């Protein structure tokens, strides 16, 4: 069976080519439903939509450069209680695929009967920016892609500007990958299968000639290198700016304890967050007053630093850097950079890359007898 194929782009219309590919999946009964971004009737946003009828794919916008919700969370919603009995195809960006892998390890999602379709992502903009961009452009996705490919990253969210994984890294978890990077979008894009089911799809869709991945790989390597450079630059700066209690408190000053950041986070999977639970927040007035007495005053709601540090402690090993926490903050706290920075450090400590493989053990439930020594810290 073919490992890869070129998906021809008719009339130079890239969105249509991908849409046709998706329609093919439904028409040929390769999947019974598809979870894809679909343009809302309002015309200024897309949302993940579970599509079962081919007609409804007309408004599908798989290339829309916006991520209102991390798709891993939606897959968790769909499959957590019981795996799907019908075959569902899901389109996922790298950060969504990586988050999904983590959620599977955390038993919050089940891949049974899912066809995972990874797609290259050059980056996304905020929902607001996207809305504006839609008003200004007839084909916003194509225009956006072109701009980014030409080196203009001004529209990108900061998380995307430093994202070193524009392509899905987890080839074993996705069945098929739609490769855009390094391809001539007017001519054709690359489909790569990574599972028998992926191969079956390429075979069933009768796409013809095998593709040549080398062009994409070269472009991807260059892009990744550039992104890493950007990332290190930004994080280095972040580290200098943030060090110490005063700087941290400066950063968190606008925090009103709404905890939207944790709701947006694909890794924060708890039903009831410890930090919202009676254990952490229900105290008698007397207790609050005693804390106030100790330091002369007490900011209310209390414990903003505690909240963010405990959240980091819970999710840093699995943080995929999607940056949605920052987008969710009503007061615009720049959470992405410190979380990314801490995530990288903690992940390096255990040589762990979230989303790399379902077989990698979660660092905090494992141990090695010979590590770290007595202090617990290198």
């Amino acid at each position, binding site marked *: 069976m073919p490992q890869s194929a070129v998906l021809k782009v008719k009339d130079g219309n890239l969105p249509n080519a991908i849409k046709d590919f998706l329609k093919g999946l439904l028409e040929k009964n390769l999947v019974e439903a598809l979870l894809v971004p679909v343009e809302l009737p309002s015309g200024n946003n897309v949302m993940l939509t579970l599509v079962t009828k081919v007609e409804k794919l007309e408004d599908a916008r798989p290339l829309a450069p916006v991520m209102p919700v991390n798709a891993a969370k939606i897959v968790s919603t769909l499959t957590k209680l019981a795996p799907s009995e019908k075959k569902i195809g899901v389109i996922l960006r790298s950060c969504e695929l990586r988050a999904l892998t983590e959620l599977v390890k955390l038993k919050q999602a089940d891949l049974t009967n899912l066809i995972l379709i990874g797609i290259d992502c050059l980056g996304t903009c905020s929902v607001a920016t996207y809305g504006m961009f839609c008003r200004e452009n007839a084909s916003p996705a194509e225009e956006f892609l072109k701009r980014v490919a030409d080196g203009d990253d001004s529209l990108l969210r900061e998380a995307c500007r430093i994202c070193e994984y524009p392509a899905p890294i987890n080839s074993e978890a996705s069945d098929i990958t739609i490769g855009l990077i390094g391809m001539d979008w007017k001519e054709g894009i690359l489909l790569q299968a990574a599972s028998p089911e992926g191969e079956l799809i390429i075979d069933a869709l009768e796409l013809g000639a095998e593709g040549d991945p080398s062009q994409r790989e070269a472009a991807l390597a260059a892009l990744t290198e550039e992104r890493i450079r950007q990332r290190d630059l930004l994080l280095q700066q972040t580290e200098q700016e943030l060090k*110490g209690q005063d700087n941290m408190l400066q950063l968190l000053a606008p925090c009103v304890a709404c905890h939207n950041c944790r709701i947006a986070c694909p890794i924060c999977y708890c039903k009831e967050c410890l930090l919202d639970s009676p254990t952490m927040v229900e105290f008698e007035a007397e207790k609050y007053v005693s804390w106030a007495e100790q330091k*002369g005053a007490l900011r209310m709601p209390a414990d903003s*630093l505690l909240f963010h*540090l405990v959240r980091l402690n819970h999710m840093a090993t699995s943080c995929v850097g999607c940056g949605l926490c920052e987008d969710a903050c009503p007061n615009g706290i720049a959470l992405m950079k410190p979380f990314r920075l*801490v995530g990288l*450090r*903690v992940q390096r400590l*255990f040589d762990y890359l979230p989303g790399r493989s379902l077989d990698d053990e979660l660092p905090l439930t494992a141990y090695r007898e010979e*590590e770290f020594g*007595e202090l617990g810290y290198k």
Partner: protein
Amino acid sequence: MADLDGEFEPVLVGFFCNWCTATAADLAGTTRLQYPPNIRPIRTMCSSSVDPVYILKALLRGADGVFIGGCVPGDCHYVSGNFKERRRIAAFKTILDTLGLEHERIWLRWISAAEGQKFAATMREFTAKMKELGPSPFKKGWSI
């Protein structure tokens, strides 16, 4: 926070594993080994039951240092609790370190039930080190 002479006396919280470090502390007492009185002992069943959130809570509320004492590697009463705790503390200290939040205030040490001497010596060392670090910045942070 200061004793009668006005010298800084750190507030220290210790989580001691029931089977080893707490017993070593008993032995240190029984043998009348002297160490500074700053440490406030909390007995836990296993070092692996010390959640970083307890440590954080202690630090944010005004403790100047937190000590976790577990069994010597291979000796854990619950097979591997000390190893699991070590990973958690390593990760947690990395978080604090990255954000410049003085991870040096958290110590994890293995002290077996026979090591009364080591317990006393470690408490002396810990207290001295925390004195050297000075008061924790969280101590007066009313807005944390």
